[in-house]
């Protein structure tokens, strides 16, 4: 299986005019197994989106190295697909042409026409091939952008809060869809999220990050079978554990009782 990521001592700074550099990532080491589902979670400013952009190749590390299947990551590639929070579908293309975009710019569209159809079906958008993005709902657009990234068969799919803009019900629905697609496609998925439940529900590994300086706080393996019930005691335990790391646990021990 392909799609193994290794991140070694990666540091990223942002230069500011006349002020001290901001350290967006500080010596991050991380190994992500091929075919696993990993979530990056943490408060804003903890560098999770920066890490994702580094993996995508949209920006370069100042120190350290990122490798995909033992090859150093330089620049962007269709091997590392990216889905943003806003679907960023191209508004001038209909759904079918949006999904086909990657194949077209790589000049492999002609021999893969059926693939476009297949992925539109996979995300449940049959019948909307000729619609334009502005005619679809947010959830449907997000499905379409998922199909657009999947159709090129990336080794790793990077998801930057892909469900953040959706309402709660659409969101839970999409989480199941995402799991189904992940199982079918056998690819590595790395997702940035703010939602602890979402992270536990989906992931093999939850990576908790902390800000100032941005670094990995703890890596938690979620050892639960799928499908996972959100009310399962194990689920709740993982939940309180992660919240505690993020300092949202509440000081349960400190509560004193007056008699």
């Amino acid at each position, binding site marked *: 299986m392909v799609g193994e990521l290794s991140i070694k001592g990666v540091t990223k700074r942002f230069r500011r005019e006349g002020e001290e550099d901001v350290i967006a990532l500080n010596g991050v080491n991380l190994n992500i197994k091929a075919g696993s589902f990993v979530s990056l979670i943490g408060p804003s400013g903890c560098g999770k989106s920066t890490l994702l952009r580094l993996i995508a190749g949209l920006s370069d590390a100042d120190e350290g190295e990122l490798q995909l299947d033992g090859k150093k990551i330089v620049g962007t590639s269709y091997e590392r697909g*990216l889905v*943003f929070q806003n679907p*960023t579908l191209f508004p*001038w293309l209909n759904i079918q042409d949006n999904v086909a*975009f*990657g194949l*077209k*710019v790589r000049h492999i569209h002609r021999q893969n026409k059926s693939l476009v159809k297949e992925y539109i079906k996979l995300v449940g958008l049959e019948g909307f091939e000729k619609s334009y993005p*502005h005619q679809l709902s947010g959830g449907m657009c997000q499905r379409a952008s998922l199909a657009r*990234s999947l159709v090129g068969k990336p080794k790793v799919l990077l998801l930057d809060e892909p469900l953040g803009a959706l309402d709660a019900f659409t969101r839970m629905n999409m989480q199941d869809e995402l799991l189904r697609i992940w199982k079918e496609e056998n690819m590595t998925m790395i997702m940035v999220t703010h939602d602890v439940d979402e992270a536990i529900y989906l992931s093999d590994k939850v990576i908790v990050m902390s800000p100032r300086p941005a670094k990995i706080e703890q890596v938690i393996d979620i050892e639960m079978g799928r499908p996972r019930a959100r009310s399962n005691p194990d689920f709740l335990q993982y939940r309180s554990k992660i919240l505690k790391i993020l300092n949202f646990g509440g000081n349960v021990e400190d509560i004193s009782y007056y008699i």
Partner: protein
Amino acid sequence: MNTNAKSKTTDLIKEVLPCVSIVFTLLLQLMIPDSASHPQADAHYFTYVLWISLVVWALIFILSFFRQNVRKKLIYKGYFIAGAILFLNIVNLLTVKSALLPVLYFPSLDRIFGVLITDRQLILKCLLYSIRLLSVGFLSGAVIGIISGIAIGFSKTVSYWLMPVVRVLGPIPSTAWIPLVLVCFPSAVSASTFLIAVAVWFPTTIMTSSGISNVQNSYFEVSRTLGAGKLAQIFEVGVPAAMPHMFLGLFNGTCSSFITLVTAEMIGAKYGIGWYVNWQKELLAYANVYAGLIVIAVVFSILITLLFKVRDKVLLWQKGVIKW
């Protein structure tokens, strides 16, 4: 009377009103004798125009009972058509019927419409000359403008060198180049073509480049993670995303090209609609001047409408950047 019946009556009034206005104008035109101080037209062309429009609108009125969409349009346009004809009526009364306006500068409608018929061969020839000049100038200006706009939008080096030039030279009205152009170009035609091209080039360049620099960065980023190279980023993402701006530039360019055309034809052109108007003005033939202006107005608005039709086709995905 309930509101429904009331609105039905107003609808009917709106439908009939154009015909009523035409008949009213026709009656005044036939009954009031022409003022003696106006030179006589060789025929009552305005009367013919009124008869023809009466027949046309009567036919449309009848058709509106069978076609719902025709009826809706007629109801919507009813007041305007009636008003426009009323305006012609008033002009007619002020000129040939009463000679209240200076006779030399405000010829009778009979003579203006007459020119369109008697002088049609020369006007058509002039129009074809103008359209040839306009299309060559417009197309070269638009193509070069789009190319330079894309180059400025995507290349920092091109932007560094070209943007200041565009900023300084662009706002100069292209007609101000006439003295220089007359020296540099071998013929009046090539000089005028150049002026029109410059007039189109500037707004097209500015709007294209600003359109490209306004494209959301995430579009480019997503396209890169989908495997788009530099060329694909330019032509598959930047250009289509900047298309609405481009059309805005082309629209502005079209308008200034009309202005430039009419002025440019005054510099030693042999034929051309701008030349025609200017020449007739010097001959104090104001009926011909107005006829020329009518032709210019009709043709230019047809051209603008065409441009917008193209835009609507291309920008199907985006509804109405600017309304026309």
